[in-house]
């Protein structure tokens, strides 16, 4: 089969279209003919060597996969050939540890991240993934678009529903609102009945953010403190919850935007920089930082249900063929993608 392989980390040229052996199913594997694979900044970080932990080269990139089952291993009972499926961000978990048993499987110590560890990734015609890490795609949903259901949407559902317990009527700030997670965060927070504030330094994105569910869009200059604007639209109270897709570069304005008893959901971190802060700044206002980590299979199934109900929808931009993978990364790194770009091996 054809696949994009990274043998040595580096620039765009580190990705090469190669012909590699087709995957064959081990006992618990489901072999998927890839319909689409989302392109995440994570892929860029693996390719250029920024991310080293959990990476084993050579590797095939890509952890946001949807496709059709073409073969199953001897111990697979939940899936059959011809079924449409979407993946979580892993291809192996042990299934038995306390994390796997306690709806925390992204923390399984045996986990193998799809697209990071060896020749198992979504930038390929086929990929073999253990059945624990798959969900059936309900009829009627566009298969390519739901490739991003776990990473770009499920992570936000995890944040909003399970970690942050957002309630109808609360106010939410989404940092990095224009990004792949941000646009879905606007939608999901809106679906929960919250008042949603988007934050962006790109004024041209404001209209789309409103269409995605933002009640207010705070537009500011790059590097500028936007907290005053957030306080202005919250009667000085600040927000009940921040869905933070940015981290360090906006740490102080984000902190100052958070209200008393606010929950600060840590999802994204765009740089390797550290940040100084005084813990008292949080505890004197009874604020909490909460970690959001990846997506469980159950959360993926719930996202697919919400998409089917029409509550939320995946935002995808251009599709690229495998041969255009370098171009896809170029566009993603340049921030010229709205939502997610897709790799479509069938193109």
């Amino acid at each position: 089969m054809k696949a994009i392989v990274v043998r040595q980390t580096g620039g765009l040229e580190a990705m090469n279209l190669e012909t590699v052996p087709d995957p064959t199913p081990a006992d618990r594997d489901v072999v998927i003919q890839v319909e689409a694979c989302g392109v995440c900044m994570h892929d860029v970080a693996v390719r250029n060597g920024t991310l080293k932990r959990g990476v084993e080269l050579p590797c095939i990139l890509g952890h946001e996969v949807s496709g059709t089952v073409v073969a199953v291993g001897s111990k697979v009972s939940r899936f059959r050939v011809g079924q449409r499926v979407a993946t979580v961000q892993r291809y192996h978990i042990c299934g038995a540890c306390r994390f796997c048993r306690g709806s925390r499987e992204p923390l399984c110590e045996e986990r193998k991240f799809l697209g990071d560890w060896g020749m198992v990734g979504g930038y390929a015609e086929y990929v073999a993934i253990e059945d624990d890490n798959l969900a059936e795609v309900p009829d009627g949903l566009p298969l390519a678009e739901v490739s991003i259901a776990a990473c770009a949407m499920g992570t936000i559902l995890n944040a909003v529903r399970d970690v942050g317990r957002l309630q109808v009527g609360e106010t939410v700030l989404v940092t990095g609102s224009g990004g792949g997670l941000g646009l879905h965060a606007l939608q999901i927070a809106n679906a929960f009945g919250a008042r949603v504030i988007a934050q962006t330094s790109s004024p041209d994105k404001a209209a789309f953010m409103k269409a995605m569910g933002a009640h207010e869009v705070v537009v500011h200059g790059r590097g500028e403190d936007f907290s005053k604007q957030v306080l202005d639209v919250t009667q000085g109270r600040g927000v009940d919850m921040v869905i933070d897709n940015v981290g360090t570069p906006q740490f102080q304005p984000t902190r100052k935007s958070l209200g008393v008893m606010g929950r600060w959901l840590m999802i994204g971190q765009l740089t390797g920089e550290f940040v100084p802060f005084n813990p008292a700044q949080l505890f004197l206002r009874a604020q909490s930082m909460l970690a959001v980590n990846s997506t469980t299979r159950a959360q993926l199934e719930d996202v697919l249900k919400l998409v089917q109900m029409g509550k939320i929808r995946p935002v995808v931009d251009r599709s690229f063929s495998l041969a255009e993978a370098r171009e896809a990364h170029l566009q993603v790194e340049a921030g010229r993608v709205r939502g997610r770009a897709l790799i479509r091996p069938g193109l």
Partner: protein
Amino acid sequence: MNVIHATALAIESIAPASAPKPEPQRGDILIRVGKASLNYRDLAVLSGTHIAAATLPFVPCSDACGVVEAVGTDVTRFKPGDRVVTCYIQGWRDGRLKKEHRMRTLGGPLPGVLQEYLVVPAEDAVAAPAHLSDSEAATLPIAALTAWTALQEGGVRPGDTVLVQGTGGVGLFGLQFARAAGARVIALTSSAEKAAMLARLGAAEVIDYRRIPDWAAAVREASGGQGADIVIETVGSTLEQSLGAVAFGGFIGMVGFLGGLTVPLNLRQMIGPNIRLQGVVVGSRAGFEAMNRAMVLHAIHPVLDRTFAFADAQAAFARMKAAAHVGKIVIDVDGTGEAR
């Protein structure tokens, strides 16, 4: 000032009377009552079975909206001219209900709101949502907050299925709040006309319980065989069916007793499917304020039934007793009609 008195535990005894105008003490607000709204509970109080210690004559009714006319010393929460709504359970500000709060309810044992002027502690009223008329705001303290609390205790979230019963206050507010929270709502009712209204308010499915007496099966069918994640049980006596209609691990908020106070309960129906069954008595002030915030954001307006003149309060109670109403019955205490 003018008041409405019940001189006996019977709605026939309800009649206009007069009483001295109250004075706000330290921490109190004096409210010029604009509109009041009835609940089924008001009938129950007058039946004599609900609260043993009601002393006669008695000012009935629990829910009111009005304007602050004066404040006692040390009041910072409100100022004269503010539009406020009373809290039904006086003193329950936040957190868990305590025994000492339980008997501090307006409209029995504490005096009710059918009076021109009313004094309550400033801490036991909330600001009226700006988008609501006095009539609309007057419907919130019991019915709306009960529905809100049931849904919050049930942990409502997008994609959930919520079952509401009927077209009374709690059922309609439950429908509206569940929709705002992204849930799918199944409603029970008894006529095509009411069904059409429920559909207009956003019910995904409406089941006519007269035509389909075994509505539990119909609810399961209308929810992909799963059952409802949350049931707001307002009838009470239908608990057995609600247990049949609720999903595994689901929640039943027991809020009403329209069908009587005792019901058969098959524990197996509750234990096996891991059902949470919780009594819900209205809610705290913190819940009230969170609810109002959501109502403003989602521009939710209560469904109003008919408005009765202050002097016709008895007729309002009769309408409630006849169960002829859809939505909330309003009493025009200040005589200004529908206008603010």
